[in-house]
C-alpha cells in the first residue's frame, strides 16, 4: 500500500537531508504511528506521502515513493488529491474559507471532484455522523472550537474516501478536550480498517492505545519500528528526544527500586500500569 525505497530528501537551500535513506512498507489497513522529536522529519515524511514533497516544496528527492499504487514523484498534486488525504496541526489554516457552513465545507472536495449531487449529499451526511459534527452542520466553520475545527478538517478529507490518510500532529495545537475529541475520531477510524492511516504524534499515551505499529524517526532516519508496547517502553526513547509516558517512567523507577511485578514488560497505558502495580 505504501512503499518507500531509499528515500532521501533535501529542502531547497538546505545542506542536511530532512529524510535520509528511509525504506518503509506499510500494508493496507494498517494504523501506523510516527513519533520523534521536533525536527526529526515527521512532517517531511507526511508531506512526502501526500506528494507535497517534492511537488509543492520542490527541493531534491531521491528514491522511490509509491502510495496506493501511484508513483508519487511522477504524479501531480491534482491527481493525488482524493488519493491521499492530509490533515495537519493548525486547524484554522485548513479551513478553505470558500464555504459558509460546516456541511458545505465538507462537500468542497467532492464539488471539486465533480461528484454528483445525490451521492455528495449522502456521503456528507455519513461523515457528519462519523465525526460527530451533525449538530454543527449549519454553523460557520470559523465559529467552531479548535477541536471541532480539527474534526472538520479530518471529515473533509475522509469524505473524499482516500485509500491513504496522513495526519501530521493533528492535536498539537489543541487543548486536552479538543485532543480527546480528535482521538475519539481517530480511534473509530482505526477500528474501521477502511483506510491505511499514518499518524505523526507526540502524545505517546494515545499512540499506545490504538496504533498497530510505531515508527521512531530521529534526524531523518527510522531508528525503531515495531509494536507499540515494545517501542514505547524501550529504554532508547529518551536518547531520541522523546519522553516515555509517566506510566512507563514510574514502572521503570519502581523496578529499579526493587518492585517486582507479575507482568514482565513495562506498561505504556493507564490500564497496563494498573495491571503492573496490582
Amino acid at each position: 500500500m505504501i512503499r518507500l525505497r531509499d528515500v532521501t530528501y533535501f529542502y531547497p537551500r538546505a545542506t542536511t537531508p530532512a529524510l535520509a535513506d528511509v525504506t518503509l512498507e506499510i500494508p493496507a489497513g494498517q494504523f501506523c504511528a510516527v513519533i520523534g522529536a521536533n525536527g526529526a522529519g515527521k512532517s517531511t515524511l507526511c508531506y512526502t506521502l501526500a506528494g507535497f514533497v517534492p511537488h509543492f516544496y520542490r527541493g531534491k528527492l531521491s528514491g522511490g515513493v509509491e502510495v496506493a499504487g501511484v508513483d508519487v514523484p511522477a504524479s501531480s498534486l491534482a491527481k493525488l488529491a482524493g488519493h491521499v488525504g492530509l490533515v495537519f496541526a493548525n486547524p484554522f489554516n485548513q479551513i478553505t474559507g470558500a464555504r459558509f457552513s460546516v456541511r458545505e465545507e465538507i462537500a468542497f472536495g467532492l464539488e471539486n471532484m465533480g461528484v454528483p449531487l445525490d451521492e455528495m449529499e449522502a456521503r456528507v451526511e455519513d461523515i457528519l455522523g462519523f465525526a460527530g459534527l451533525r449538530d454543527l452542520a449549519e454553523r460557520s466553520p470559523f465559529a467552531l472550537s479548535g477541536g471541532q475545527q480539527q474534526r472538520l478538517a479530518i471529515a473533509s478529507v475522509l469524505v473524499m474516501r482516500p485509500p491513504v490518510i496522513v495526519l501530521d500532529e493533528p492535536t498539537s495545537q489543541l487543548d486536552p478536550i479538543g485532543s480527546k475529541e480528535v482521538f475519539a475520531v481517530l480511534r473509530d477510524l482505526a477500528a474501521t480498517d477502511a483506510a491505511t492511516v499514518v499518524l505523526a504524534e507526540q502524545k505517546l499515551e494515545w499512540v499506545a492505545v490504538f496504533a498497530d505499529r510505531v515508527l521512531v524517526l530521529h534526524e531523518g532516519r527510522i531508528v525503531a519500528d515495531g509494536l507499540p508496547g515494545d517501542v514505547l517502553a524501550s529504554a532508547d526513547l529518551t536518547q531520541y528526544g522523546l519522553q516515555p509516558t509517566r506510566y512507563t517512567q514510574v514502572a521503570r523507577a519502581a523496578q529499579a527500586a526493587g518492585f517486582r511485578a507479575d507482568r514482565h514488560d513495562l506498561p505504556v497505558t493507564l490500564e497496563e500500569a494498573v495491571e503492573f502495580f496490582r
Partner: protein
Amino acid sequence: MKDDGQRPTEARAPMPIVVEDVSFTYPSGTHALRGVSLRVSPGEAVAIVGENGAGKTTLVKHLNGLLKPGTGRVTIGDWDTREHTVAKMAARVGYVFQNPDDQIVERTVGDEVAFGPRRLGQPAAEQQANVAAALATVGLTEAAKTHPYDLTAPQRKLVTLASVLAMRTPIVIFDEPTMGQDARGVALIGDIVDRLKAEGRTVLTITHDIDFCAAHFGRAIVMADGQVLADGPAADVLTRADVLATTNVEPPQLVRLAQALRLKRAPLTVEEFVAEVVGSE
C-alpha cells in the same frame, strides 16, 4: 555588573500582585470575570488552569494593564494598572503570548530578543548582557544571527520567551508555554520556570498541560465561569477530582494511576510515587 549597586533594577524590587474583587465584561456582553480576588507573593509559581472561556486569559491580561478592571482594583507593587500604559507596565510584568508569529518583527533572533529591552530603555551594556543570558537560557545562543522564520515554530516560541526574559521583569506570565513543544522543549521550559523561581521572580502560567503544571508549579488556581473555583497548593488542588471534573480538566497521569490503584496519597512526581508504592510493599 558595576552599576548594580546604584540602580536597583525593577527585577529585584519585591512586587506583589494584588487583585481585589475584579469584575470585567467585554463589549460583547460576556461576563469574563466575576469578583475575582487573589494575591501572589514575590517568588511564587502559580499555574492557572480551567476550560477555554473560563476567564484565564482575561485575568492575566489584567495583570499588565491590557485590560483595565470594570470594577475592583489590580495593583502590581505600588502601581495601580489603571494609572499606567501597558508599555510602562511592561517594566514590571513580562507577558509571553501564545502564538510567536503575533509578535516577531526583527530580522535576526538576537535583535528580536533585544526588542523589549530596547523599548524599556535598558543601557546598552546591560541590554547586551540580558539578551545573551536570555538566549543562553533557551539554548539559542548559536541562532543569534539566524532569521527567526528560519527556525521551526516551537523554536520561534522559545525566541519570544527569551525576548520577555531579557526584559528582566520581576513578574513573568506565560500563555500555554508547552503547546507544540516536544519532550525536550517541555523539560527546557520547566527548567526556566524553576530558575525564575530561584531568582525570586514571580511566574504565572496559563496551561492545559497538567503534568507540566504538577511538576513545576507550587500553587494552582482553577477557574471556571469567570470565578476562582479553587486556589491552593498544586499537590492539593490537582488531586481534587471533584474540582477538576467540573472544569473538564484531566488530573495528571500519576494522579489518575494512584486513584485507579486506590493509593491513600496522590503523588505528583515519579519519585513520590515510587516511594509510595515500594514503601507499601
